[in-house]
C-alpha cells in the first residue's frame, strides 16, 4: 500500500513514529547547531551542552547517574558492548568466560552470545516455560565459578512477556556477577530504576519510544571497569569513540523524558485497546494467546491461528493498510519460524501462524475496530484454503 495516510500501524515493537516534539527538539542540531561537540570554539558548546542535557534526561528516566550513561548507535551495539565489558572482567584469560542468557533473546544478544561461543567462551541458554518465563532457580543452578555475565531480555519483543528482572538481578548481586538486561521494549511502559533493581548494565534503543533510528544507550553501573567496543577518538569519556550523533542524542533525551511523563496515561489508553483486541480475537475459534496473562507488556500481543501461516495474514492486512508482524519463517527470512515461540513449546505449524500486534500511544479505538473487522474474514479465508485446518 503506497498511501501512508490511512495506515493502521500496529507494529510499534518494530519501530515507532518520531513524535513531533522530539522532531522539534532535534532539528536545530541538524541545522543551525551543526558543530562538532569536541571542538574548542564556543559555538560547539551548544552541541556539547545539548548532549549533556540528554544524558541527564536519560539518567533520570532510569534512576542512574549521568556519568553512567553512554550513547551508542543502537541497542545492538549496546548489547554487543555489554558482552565485551563482561569479557573484560575475566582476570584469568586462560579460563573461558561463561555467559548465561536465554533462548528467547533478541538476535542482538543471541547472535552476540553465539559469536562469543565461537571465540571460545561458554554460554548457557536458559529455557522458558509455556508462558515464556525463565525460572530464577534455573539461573541459580547455571551459575559457575567463571560466569561473567547474565543477560536477560527485560520484556520479549515478540510476545511482550516480562521476565522477573528484580529477582534475577538480586541473584546476580548476591553472587557478584554482572547482570545485563536488554530493556528495549519496556521504556515508557514499565518503570525502570537501575539502582533499586540492582541492574549492572542496561541497553536501550531510541526508536522504540518515538526517537529516530540510529541512537541507543548503554547504562553501566559506576565502578564496573569498561572495556571499549569501538576504538578511536575520546568521545563519551574515552569509552565510545565516534563523533556524537548530536541531533539523535537530543532526540533520545527528549523522547525518554516524554515516555516517562506520559507512561501512566499511555498505559491506561493501551490497556483499553488491548482488552478490546484480546476479547474479540480470542472469540475466533482455535486461536492461542502466546504470552503470559500476569506478566505481559500491555502494548505487545501475540496470537497463533491454527491452520494458517503468518505471511498470508500479513499480506492480506497489508493490502488493507494494516502493519503487523509475524513469527513465521517466511517473514523472518529464514527457514525456521520464531525461536521465541518454539522455545515456548509451540509446534511449527502454530509458530508459523503467529501474529504480533504492538501498539503505541498514537493508536485509536477506531483503528482497533477496523482491524478486527478485517482480521476475522482474513483468518476465515486463509483457513478455508488450508489442508491442515480442522474446524
Amino acid at each position, binding site marked *: 500500500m503506497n498511501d501512508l495516510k490511512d495506515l493502521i500501524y500496529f507494529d510499534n515493537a518494530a519501530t515507532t513514529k518520531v513524535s513531533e516534539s522530539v522532531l522539534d527538539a532535534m532539528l536545530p542540531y541538524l541545522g543551525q547547531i551543526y558543530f562538532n561537540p569536541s571542538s574548542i570554539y564556543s559555538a560547539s558548546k551548544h552541541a556539547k551542552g545539548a548532549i549533556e542535557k540528554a544524558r541527564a534526561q536519560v539518567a533520570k528516566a532510569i534512576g542512574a547517574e549521568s556519568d553512567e550513561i553512554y550513547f551508542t548507535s543502537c541497542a545492538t551495539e549496546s548489547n554487543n558492548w555489554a558482552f565485551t565489558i563482561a569479557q573484560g572482567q575475566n582476570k584469568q584469560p586462560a579460563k573461558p568466560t561463561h555467559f548465561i542468557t536465554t533462548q528467547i533473546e533478541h538476535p542482538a544478544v543471541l547472535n552476540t552470545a553465539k559469536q562469543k561461543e565461537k571465540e571460545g567462551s561458554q554460554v548457557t541458554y536458559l529455557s522458558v516455560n509455556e508462558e515464556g518465563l525463565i525460572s530464577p532457580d534455573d539461573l541459580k543452578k547455571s551459575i559457575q565459578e567463571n560466569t561473567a555475565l547474565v543477560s536477560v531480555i527485560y520484556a520479549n519483543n515478540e510476545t511482550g512477556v516480562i521476565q522477573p528482572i528484580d529477582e534475577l538481578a538480586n541473584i546476580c548481586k548476591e553472587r557478584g556477577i554482572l547482570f545485563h538486561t536488554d530493556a528495549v521494549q519496556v521504556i515508557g511502559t514499565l518503570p525502570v530504576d537501575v539502582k533499586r533493581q540492582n541492574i549492572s548494565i542496561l541497553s536501550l534503543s531510541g526508536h522504540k519510544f518515538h526517537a529516530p533510528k540510529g541512537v541507543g544507550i548503554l547504562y553501566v553501573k559506576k565502578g564496573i571497569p569498561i572495556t571499549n567496543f569501538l576504538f578511536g577518538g575520546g568521545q563519551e569519556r574515552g569509552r565510545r569513540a565516534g563523533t556524537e550523533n548530536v541531533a539523535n542524542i537530543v532526540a533520545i533525551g527528549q523522547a525518554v523524558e516524554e515516555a516517562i511523563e506520559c507512561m501512566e496515561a499511555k498505559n491506561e489508553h493501551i490497556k483499553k485497546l488491548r482488552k478490546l483486541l484480546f476479547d474479540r480475537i480470542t472469540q475466533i475459534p482455535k486461536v492461542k494467546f502466546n504470552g503470559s496473562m500476569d506478566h505481559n507488556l500491555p502494548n505487545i500481543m501475540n496470537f497463533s491461528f491454527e*491452520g494458517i*501461516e503468518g*505471511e*498470508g495474514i500479513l*499480506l492480506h492486512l497489508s493490502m488493507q493498510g494494516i502493519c503487523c508482524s509475524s513469527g513465521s519463517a517466511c517473514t523472518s527470512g529464514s527457514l525456521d519460524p520464531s525461536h521465541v515461540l518454539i522455545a515456548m513449546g509451540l509446534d*511449527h505449524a502454530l509458530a508459523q501462524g503467529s501474529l504480533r500486534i504492538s501498539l503505541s500511544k498514537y493508536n485509536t479505538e477506531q483503528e482497533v475496530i477496523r482491524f478486527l473487522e478485517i482480521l476475522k474474514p482474513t483468518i476465515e479465508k486463509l483457513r478455508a*484454503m*488450508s489442508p*491442515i485446518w480442522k474446524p
Partner: protein
Amino acid sequence: MLDLQVIPHPPNIPESEENSPKMFFEIGERITTMYSEKVMDHFTNPRNVGELADANGIGEIGNAKCGDIMKMYVKIEDNTIIDIKFKTFGCGAAIATSSMATELIKGKKIEDALKLTNKAVMEALNGLPPQKIHCSVLAEQAVKLAISNYYKGQGVDPEPIVGKIVHCECED
C-alpha cells in the same frame, strides 16, 4: 524473467527530479515486497481452491516446519485432468503457485500435465523472489504426487511415468 534479478542491490538510483518518495517506494517494493501483481492476484483470488469429493488422485507435499503444505486433488478421465482443486497452508507464494499450477494443467492430458515445471509456474506468475522459488518446486511436485496417486489407484507403478517425487528439503 524475474524482474527482480535485473535490479542490482543496492539499486542504481537515477539522478533526476524523479527522486520522489513514490519512486523510492517502487524501488523498495521491487526489492523487498517481492511479489508481482500476478502473484498477488493469485494469492488474493486463488483459482480452483477447495477439495474434490470425487478426486481419483490426491497428493500432499511439504511440511509445517518450513511453512508450506500443498494438497492437490485431481479427477482424471481418459488420461485427461478434467478437474483439479488444491488446498495450501503457506505463504503468499505457496498459495499463488498452487493456484497457477492448477490453472496451467486443468483440462490437459496427463502427459502434458507432467511437463509442468516449476519454471513454467514462475514464468506464468511473472517471477518469484529467489527465496520463494521452492514454493514453485512444491507446486510442481504436488501435481506429480497427485498424478502418481492416481496411477497407484489404477494399479500402475507411477515411477516410470511420473518420475521420482522431490520432497521439501526440510522434511524429515
